[in-house]
């Protein structure tokens, strides 16, 4: 089965959905697409190379602020401003990735956590430019269907890019780094360069999605766009579905978004506790995730 035969019907269905969905459900779908794109982006660096990023929300947050500033101060169209969100996100990834991707295991994870705190502090500090702690208000959003399409496109592009990477030798080399970096290096793979490429890609999409989110939310502030819980949610979605696979992050993001909507929203007070319990359960019982388990037993092709 060629990937086109899978993607085309999905695109068609998603394109028609806004015609029959209520505004509430369209909002739900927008957030779900956002999570698919974010979990998929995290997967590109952490799922493939094994370098666990605990600060991925920083790229999202930088994207939201970039778009908010371009829209309010420079009068850009929200779509262009959103796409522009990838540029500072990738620059940030370049600056932090070059030194920090040399760190192994928990040291890299912690350095990324630190990065997010630094960026959040800087954004809060430069009040004149960023509005400090109170953030930036954007014009109220009138039509959400265009945002729906933009987010859906982002989710699909991330997934297609993941597919293209995993089924290529570039992807095999990233997996080789995850499996045994020293051996990969000794076999002639320029591990430092490969990790940086993957990291730049994985930072670009959260920047864009963050840009769209700024327009959708009509307001950005440090507390709402740099929370650690956003990174943790990306991670848990990716692990739940199966990290290092093409459809794992999609599956994880869709299932957890639906679960969140159906179950957790009704038990608001235990929401965080349930998420925490789920993290423990996934890590303990199914560290490979749904697709990882299936792959182990049924030898799924890499393309899934």
């Amino acid at each position: 089965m060629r990937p086109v035969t899978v993607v085309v019907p999905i695109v068609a269905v998603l394109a028609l959905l806004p015609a029959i969905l209520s505004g509430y459900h369209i909002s739900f779908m927008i957030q779900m697409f956002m999570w698919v794109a974010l979990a998929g982006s995290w997967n590109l660096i952490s799922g493939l190379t094994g370098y666990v990023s605990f600060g991925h929300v920083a790229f999202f947050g930088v994207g939201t602020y970039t778009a908010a500033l371009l829209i309010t101060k420079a009068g850009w169209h929200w779509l262009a401003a959103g796409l522009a969100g990838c540029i500072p996100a990738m620059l940030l990834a370049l600056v932090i990735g070059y030194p920090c991707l040399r760190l192994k295991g928990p040291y890299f994870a912690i350095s990324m956590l630190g990065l997010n705190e630094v960026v959040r502090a800087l954004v809060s500090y430069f009040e004149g430019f960023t509005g400090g702690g109170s953030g930036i208000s954007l014009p109220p959003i009138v039509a959400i269907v265009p945002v729906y399409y933009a987010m859906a496109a982002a989710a699909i592009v991330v997934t297609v890019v993941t597919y293209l990477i995993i089924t290529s030798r570039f992807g095999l080399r990233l997996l080789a780094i995850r499996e045994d970096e020293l051996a990969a290096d000794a076999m002639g793979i320029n591990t430092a360069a490969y990790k940086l490429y993957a990291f730049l890609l994985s930072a670009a999409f959260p920047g864009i999605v963050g840009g769209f989110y700024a327009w959708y939310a009509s307001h950005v502030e440090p507390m709402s766009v740099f929370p650690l819980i956003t990174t943790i949610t990306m991670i848990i979605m990716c692990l739940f579905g199966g990290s290092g696979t093409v459809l794992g992050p999609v599956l994880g993001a869709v299932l957890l978004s639906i679960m969140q909507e159906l179950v957790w929203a009704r038990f608001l007070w235990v929401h965080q506790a349930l998420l925490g319990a789920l993290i423990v359960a996934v890590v303990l019982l199914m560290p490979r995730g749904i697709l990882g388990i299936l792959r182990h037993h049924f030898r799924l092709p890499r393309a899934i």
Partner: protein
Amino acid sequence: MPEASILEIKDVVKRFGGITAVNHCSLSIGAGKIHGLIGPNGSGKTTLFNCITGLERLQGGEIRFKGERIDGLKPYQVARRGIGRTFQIIRVFPQLTTFENLLAVTTDPIEVARKRAEELLSFVTLTRLKDEYAGNLSYGQQKLLEFIRVLMTDPELILLDEPAAGVNRTLLNELLTAMTRLRDAGKTILIVEHDMKVVMGLCEAVYVLDYGEKIAEGPPSVIRSNERVIEAYFGR
């Protein structure tokens, strides 16, 4: 020595804290032969391999491959110059399939790489395990996989760290045949090995390390009766 040497190790020093793992060691590895590197445990054989392949930085001396300095290069750069190696402890990529393990390491066009991988798999009779995860293979099969993974990039110099350890007789004979064939095809091979039968039967030149120093070199027949070698292995 009249023949051209492909690898020149000159006065190499490597220390770890107070321990001198390689101590002013010099070797000249002639092209197109199988060479053996032997010595008691902890004599610096693997460290010397690590120095050659860029995994360790030298504290003194120099290493030349085909006349050019390679000490100071990163491991992937050394590999791309044409030096391939295996590890004492197997280092295949466990969650990649056998076939993917081979494809991941070459930059040849994909069709060329596939063809070569197929050939190498049949060379060591692993073809039926092509799509199995490398981590599921037996110890001996992983050893074979690691061996042919080195050959994927067609290196001129092949460093094998204990290729015979833990390998059964049949498999060992296959490996030995493979090495002889590679030598006949013009490759240079340097092996670290504890199995004296393997070393004496296979190698044309043997170097003996003890406490990081080269204490003897020569053809196996001469090494076997060398007093310092016997002393290093069995004590006085």
